[in-house]
Each structure stands twice: as structure tokens, then as C-alpha cells.
């Protein structure tokens, strides 16, 4: 995550409201998102695309303010749109144009002179893996190739920030993997800030440092995705051999251990932390029983935990039901 103190936040909103008739699409959304790869997560209809459209100036809010890269999205919309890129969810490509022509045209639309636009289009298409195919008509492209063209047009003008709306839609597992690698590379290697809107937890977890969870037009979570050190988190432990003596010793000093769960190995336990002495007690118990300590780490909350806690699981289990789609 970029953390230069003098640079503006990537996204700031204050009491942002958007209504479509009687439907409240965004309900007083307050955000202060750092310069990072940001995941915008939520079930369908949560307000993700609406928020993106307002940030891009494609849609007007009914109240509140929105700033992107320190600039007001309405007042400085035109200037802002020179510095951001957008990859829409829909299949927004002309069938009867070559990838090189279309991407070059979109570069010119962002203000690049003609010659520079053609050069940039060739470079960017190379970087998204379409070097050989760039003079072919888009209508002959596979879904994965079309997604790459959409990504290329979004970054051809070298934006500071790129909005990606459901970039893995319609891709097979291999295509999805390649697209996520590309997005990760865009952020880590090319230094372009990424806002990834998705309803797929894995996509966000793979490439993002920060997550904003929307539900029913409200922000229900906005936080870094990976908290490296959490002094209050429970502890995961695993010892070699029979763990019973080790666990009994812990129990004698008041530390209860429970199985970590089916997603972890069967000999992994979770110990509720009780103050600063917990780590010492675990060390002493392992030494006293001669149990080789193979694992000792804080229990981090997965994105799935965060999502389920934030959005909740409905009575019919339709929401937050696993690591695939969020709906």
C-alpha cells in the first residue's frame, strides 16, 4: 500500500446520497480510502456500480460530496477524468475495429497526441498480452481477450487510478487467474492505483490491500485487508505428536484451546489470548511437555469472516455464503 503522507486519499466521500426514484442506492456514504489497491465488495444491488459512476462523473449524486485523488468529482470532473481510467462491466467494445485502432482512439480521447496514442496503444496491448493480436478485429476475440482490450483502454493514457468494474466477469478459471495477475501487476509494478469492484471475495482478496464493503447502499466495512500484527487476536498453535499433554498443561493455567475448524489442519488449535502472558504460557507448556511447537501465529480474520460479519447471512442463506460469489 502506498503511504506517502502528502498525497491525497484515493477516494473521499461525505454523506453521499443517490436515489433512483424511491430506491435509495447510496445512503449517506462516508469513505476515506487510502492510496492502495482497493476492493469494492458487496452483493448485487449494494451500490458498487452507482458509487463508481458518481466517482467518474457519469452519474450525479443527490447529496454529499465525492473527491477522487483530492479533486471534487463534480467541480473538477474533466480534469479528474484525464487522470483516471475505467473498465466497465459491460462488453463495451466496437466489434468492427481492431484492438490497436480502438485503444489508440481511446488514448486520443484522453488527450494524447495521435502519434503518442498509437505508440501507447501498442505498448499497453503488449503488456496485457495482446501484442500479436492487436491488428485483428475485436469481434473475433474470446471473452478473455475482450476483457484485456477493455483493460488496455482503461490504462492506455497512463492514469493514476483505474476503476475496474467486475473485470473477471465471464472468464473461465484460467482467464480469471490471468486477469487477476494482470491487475495485480498493474498495481504492484506499474504503480497505478486500482479500485476493483467485484462480488467475488477471492478476486478482492487476491489483489487488494484495502476493502470497502457495501450493503444496501451503506458502507458496512472499510478497512485494510491484511492486518499484519494484531496483539489482541486469538492464537493458532500446532504441536507435533500427541497434543493432549500440551493442552492439559495450558488448561491448568487457565487457557482453553479449541479445534481451529475444518478449513485448517486437524491438529491445529485456537487459544483465546488472555493478556501478555499467553505467549509465555504456551512456550512454557510446550517446553514442560516436550511438545515441539510447529505453529504459533495470530488468528487473522479472513475476508470471508469480514464479509459475513458485515453483510450477514440471510435466513435463506443467500448472502455471504462462501468464498465464491458474495451473493
Amino acid at each position: 500500500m502506498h503511504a506517502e503522507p502528502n498525497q491525497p486519499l484515493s477516494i473521499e466521500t461525505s454523506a453521499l446520497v443517490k436515489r433512483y426514484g424511491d430506491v435509495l442506492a447510496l445512503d449517506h456514504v462516508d469513505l476515506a480510502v487510502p492510496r492502495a489497491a482497493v476492493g469494492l465488495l458487496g452483493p448485487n444491488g449494494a451500490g458498487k456500480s452507482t458509487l463508481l459512476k458518481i466517482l467518474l462523473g457519469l452519474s450525479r449524486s443527490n447529496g454529499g460530496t465525492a473527491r477522487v485523488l483530492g479533486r471534487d468529482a463534480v467541480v473538477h470532473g474533466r480534469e479528474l477524468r484525464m487522470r483516471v481510467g475505467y473498465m466497465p462491466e459491460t462488453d463495451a467494445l466496437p466489434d468492427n475495429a481492431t484492438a490497436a485502432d480502438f485503444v489508440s482512439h481511446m488514448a486520443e480521447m484522453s488527450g494524447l497526441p495521435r502519434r503518442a496514442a498509437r505508440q501507447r496503444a501498442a505498448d499497453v496491448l503488449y503488456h496485457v498480452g495482446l501484442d500479436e493480436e492487436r491488428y485483428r478485429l475485436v469481434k473475433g476475440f474470446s471473452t478473455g481477450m475482450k476483457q484485456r482490450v477493455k483493460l488496455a483502454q482503461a490504462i492506455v493514457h497512463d492514469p493514476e487510478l483505474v476503476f475496474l468494474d467486475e473485470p473477471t466477469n465471464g472468464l473461465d478459471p484460467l482467464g480469471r487467474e490471468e486477469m487477476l495477475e494482470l491487475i495485480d501487476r498493474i498495481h504492484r509494478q506499474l504503480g497505478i492505483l486500482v479500485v476493483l469492484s467485484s462480488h467475488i471475495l477471492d478476486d478482492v482478496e487476491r489483489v487488494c490491500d484495502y476493502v470497502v464493503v457495501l450493503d444496501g447502499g451503506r458502507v458496512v466495512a472499510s478497512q485494510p485487508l491484511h492486518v499484519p500484527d494484531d496483539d489482541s487476536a486469538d492464537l493458532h498453535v500446532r504441536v507435533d505428536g500427541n497434543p493432549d499433554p500440551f493442552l492439559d498443561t495450558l488448561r491448568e493455567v487457565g487457557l482453553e484451546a479449541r479445534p481451529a475448524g475444518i478449513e485448517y489442519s486437524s491438529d491445529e488449535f485456537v487459544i483465546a489470548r488472555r493478556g501478555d502472558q499467553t505467549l509465555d504460557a504456551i512456550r512454557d507448556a510446550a517446553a514442560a511437555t516436550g511438545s515441539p511447537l510447529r505453529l504459533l501465529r495470530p488468528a487473522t480474520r479472513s475476508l470471508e469472516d469480514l464479509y459475513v460479519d458485515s453483510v450477514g447471512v440471510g435466513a435463506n442463506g443467500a448472502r455471504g455464503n462462501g468464498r465464491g460469489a458474495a451473493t
Partner: protein
Amino acid sequence: MSASTGQYGEIFDRGYLHYGGPRLGQTHAVWALARYSMARALGIRRPWTAKIIPMLLYAAVAIPVLIAVGIRAFFPAFEFLDYAAFFGAIFLLVGIFVAMIAPEMMSSDRHDRLLPLYFSRPIGRSSYVVAKLLAAGLLTLSMSVVPAVVLWFGNGLLADEPVAALRDSLDDLGRIAVAGTMIAFYLGAIALMISSFTGRKSIAVGVIILGFVLSESLSLAISEALRDQPDLARWTFAISPSRTIAAMVGQLFDEPDLAADIPLNASLGVMAVVIAICCVVMFAWYRRRD
């Protein structure tokens, strides 16, 4: 950046380079969009099938002009095609031409869902419409003005004293410019407005051509119905592009049969008002609605 050097050459790592060049403004984007729209409408950098109709229409306009100039070269006294006849004859061809290019410019963007891509870039919604008007107008000018200028130039060069003939006929050149420009933007604006409402090119093409044909029939029918009120009947030309253009061309090139007693100001005024209405409708249609 060279990754390795070998006996037979070098392997280059094309690392990503950030763009540090100029970023031009709104005018550049408008012109870029207009240029791209014109190229696509003419089928440039597209399969050959997309080029056929525009090229046939250009040929249909150019060939009579070239024949007229050729005949003039061998039979100086024989005028095969005058300006009034040229503009009277090209209405149908220009009408078909705008019916082909306008849907390609407007409907395709809607069909291919390109509008969010354009509007997420610096170009504004009104600038988008301006770019499309510019593209349609300029392209149609190449059908309406350019062949007439070739005819004017040919007539002048084939005269006994070419320089004097060209100088003496500068008035004609002015009339050609007025007639050609008004026809181009008048028909272009109507066709663009119709095309802006649909993402289906075939529907737009059909509505434009039918609209041009039916409006003339409707205009004549109303005119006939108002036979007892000639002052009122005269104004029915305003609902027919073909009659409006004929009236303008008739007055400009002194052809009373074409002019049908309709003053030049009236026909030019009607065309200007129609262009303005089409622009207002398009600006309103493309204005952010949510």
C-alpha cells in the same frame, strides 16, 4: 533496456514506461472523435464490405460531374449539368449517404455501449454531440460541395480565358458553398438526431430514408389540401427536406421552377431552425439523465 546481448542480436525487455508527454484539451478530443467517426463511417480500417456503399455513393455523385466536365471540354457550348441541376439531383444521393453514415456514427456507439467509455474521459456530453455533428457535416460536405466545386473549376478552366472565367464566376462559388454547406448540415443534423434514439443501425437507416420520402409526400398532400389557401399552402415546404432544399437551390441559382415562389430567407431560415432543433434535442438526449 537490454536484457542480454548475444552473437545474433539483442533481446529487449519492453518494460512499462509511464507517459510523460503532453495531454491535450477538449478541442483535441472533439477532433479525434470526429476524425474517428468519419473514418468508421467510410469503412476505413474496416472490412471491405463496410466501404462499398460510401464508395458507390461517391462514385454516383462524381461520375456525372466528371462526364459534364468532359462533355464541356469537347462541346463548349453544351451545358450537360448546371449547378441547380446538380444540387437538385444529389438530394437523393446525399439523403442515402447521411442515412448510411449517421447511424454508423451515433447508433453504433449506443449499440456497442461505448458511451460510458467516452463520458468517463475528458470529453463532455455536449462536446460528444458537437464532434458527431462536425463529423457528419464534414463528411456530407464532401458529397455536396466538393463535386460542385470540381464542376465550377472545370467550367472555369475550360473557358477561353480560364482566369477571367473563374474570377467572374466567384459568385457561383459562393452560392455553391452556401448550398452545399446548408444541405450537409441540414440533412446531417436530421439523420444524426434520428440515429441518436436507437442502437440499431438498420432501424435508423430505415427511419431516415422513409422520413425523407414520406415527408415530401406528406408536404405535397397538405399543400394540395390547402389549395384554396395558397399563402398557407406555400409554407408546407418546411416539413419536407427535399422541397426545402429545392427551394433554396432554386433561389440561389435562379431557377424559378425549383424555387416555387419561396423566398431564399424562408428556406434558409427553415433549415437553420431545423438544425437548431436537432441540436437541442440531441444535447437534451445526451444530457446526464440520472
